[in-house]
């Protein structure tokens, strides 16, 4: 019983910590600059973001984003400005709006298909637990142990 109380308290603390970490808060200007520049692709680099790149172009893009944030533009307005000049290419993750957003479905589809296949193979809760091994199974196991020992020795 003591153990269960402990687990309950631990789970409460854990939930509290996660809720605290996930609490919504207003992004500061610097955080917004980071958010936007993380998503922008540096045009002269190999797939690096504007936030990470040390190139002059990335520096100019960071300056531009910072200025737009100071001017009170929303993230969407700033992103639209870059889309006008560079197209969707400039974003490192494809927007959900167009058909290219389909790529977001990949992990979901794989997990759904995988779980479907796996759950078909799992024993239901009502099914019997395996019984004691038969003589044949034991013999097979003995043989395998001997073989593995031979292989490893």
């Amino acid at each position, binding site marked *: 019983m003591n153990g269960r109380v402990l687990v309950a308290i631990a789970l409460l*603390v854990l939930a509290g910590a*996660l809720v*605290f*970490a996930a609490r919504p808060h207003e992004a500061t200007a610097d955080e917004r600059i980071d958010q936007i520049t*993380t998503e922008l692709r540096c045009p002269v680099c190999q797939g690096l973001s504007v936030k990470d790149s040390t190139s002059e172009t990335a520096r100019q893009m960071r300056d531009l984003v910072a200025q737009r944030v100071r001017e009170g533009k929303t993230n969407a307005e700033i992103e639209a400005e870059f889309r006008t000049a560079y197209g969707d290419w400039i974003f490192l993750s*494809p927007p959900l709006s167009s058909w290219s957003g389909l790529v977001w479905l990949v992990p979901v589809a794989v997990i759904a298909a*995988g779980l479907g296949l796996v759950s078909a193979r*799992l024993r239901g809760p009502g099914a019997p637990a395996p019984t004691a091994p038969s003589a044949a199974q*034991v013999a097979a196991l003995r043989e395998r142990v001997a073989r593995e020992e031979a292989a490893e020795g």
Partner: protein
Amino acid sequence: MSAGDLGAAALRAALFLSLWGTGAAIYAAWRRDARALHSARIAAGIGFALVVLAALSMMFALATHDFSILYVAENNARETPLFYSVISLWAALEGSILLWTAILAGATAFIAVRGTVAIPRLATTALAVMFAMLTFFLLLITTPAADPFARLALAPDNGNGPNALLQNHPLMALHPPLLYLGYVLTSVPFAYAIASLILGEGGDRWLVATRRFALISWALLGVGIVAGAWWSYAVLGWGGYWAWDPVENAAIMPWLTSTAYLHSVMVEEKRSLLRTWNLALVVATFALTILGTFLTRSGVVNSVHSFSLSAIGPLLLGYLVAILVLSVGLLLWRSGRLRDAGPIGAPLSREAIFLFQNVLFMAATLTVLLGTLYPLVAEAISGAQLSIGGPYFDRVEIPLALALLFLMGVGPQLPWHGASRATLERQFTAPIVAAAAGAVAALVTGTTALAAVLTYALGAFVIATVVQEFARGVRARRTLHGEDGVAAFSNLLRRSGRRYGGYVVHLGIVVVALAVATSQARTVDAERTLAPGESLQVAGYTVRLDAVRAVSEPQRESIVADLVVTGNGANQDLRPALVQYPSSAQAVGSPGIGAGLRDDVYTILAAYDQRTLSWATIRMRVIPGVSWLWLGGAVVGIGAVIAGAPPPRRRVVRMPIAEVAAPAK
């Protein structure tokens, strides 16, 4: 005869031997002919020696600056230091393929000598598969597509020198060979799997024969990836270690499927289930190494690592198609014979966790694969040009990684077949308390991003399960064998290496995860233009610029900023530089890194006064915990060594029936 002629001749002789060996091994497997097998063995041994000779000739040609060879003229210069000359063997396409071929020839020779002793027919067939693959690679490097010894009619006075990024850090000596070893060794389990399918043998003989190879190739891939991350951190100068670059993706994909395999193979060993699936994972792992090579060596995707366009692309694609047709065809043909009997287990059993883990690894792999290829698909279909990079992969892969971290703690704590409620309580009370402590620890140390807090919680959860397992194992040995604590601990690692080595690997992965979470969540940036004597403060560290100076070396010209870092107990000189190699148009940044167990201070010389060197723009990043990433990689490697080391010789003890058959605790 020059080194180039010698190498070229050696490769042609090796090609001939490899063709001969393929035929001899096929004949030996088909007719069970001992003489043919003997001849194939000799071909494998001599072939390996010849390819090594060719690789050494290339190293010699590079070291002696023999510019009559095109590869040397393009990747070497008189000024290149000896060390970087020698490792330029893998600085470009042709040399890399030569190294790859040498490793493959070594693996072929190893199977020919060691593998064909215990299980002749399976191993002989596998040897034929290895020979066939070796023949392909020898064909590649003896035709103009990737001929490392191609000649120049007129040798230039000096060569271009290696790619600037590849001669800027000694880790280049380590990272590509490790990765190539990992890549190439995946072909051994593949060859045995194909042999097993061709022969129509059910059973797990191929699996027992290749278990150690699978583990070794997995470990080398893993350590090679971490070494690559370290290299890019120390060289590329943006303060990160992973950018979801196509080449990084190409390396992580086979590592993911291989990790899935190392776990699901246990289900086959314990329960004789998942035979087709395990074969498929072995095939997928190998095919992904070839796909990765194709993607990065054919120039279809842009990458830091892509070499220039060459005729090798279509050949590699043809090879990939041949491998897919052969292995998928065999799998579909034989899968009826490999069908499992009966259901797998309860949802809360170890085997079920392995399956869920496999699903997550598949999702992770396919996401990386499709994310890498999607821009190609989109452009082929609609002409639209789009990018898929870090933000996409982070959003998908981080939740998957967290779920896998959770399963990594749960799986080893569950018994095979199913768990009772009492078992669950016994196994998970301490880990859950640890998870709560981990989350609180994250918040207290200022790591407040949700994903990072979850990583700390799950990391503590896994660490607690591992500690619990070790504590129980040590206690059991003390009671059973009367050993003291230290002896019991070392005996656990030596005698039950697969299990406890596996736990050490898990610990290493947790360390890596914590390092990634900490460094991603708490990195602080700043940038300022400084005159000598001025300083910049970030996160309790002060960086003072002492001087900006030009440094001239035979192979390069550099502008170096002399910095002194103080604060938080640090007192260190850092020298970030901009390095100009004659071979490259633009200067490469060389960061100055003050590494520490707590924080790394990462400094970059972003710009400087070109006329009088009177100022420098310094970008500074304080990156907490990043050193633990490399340490975690080392722990993973140590765990793999423990898990793969042969157990000490022992008397063959027939175990009582009950112990053999009973589900593990």
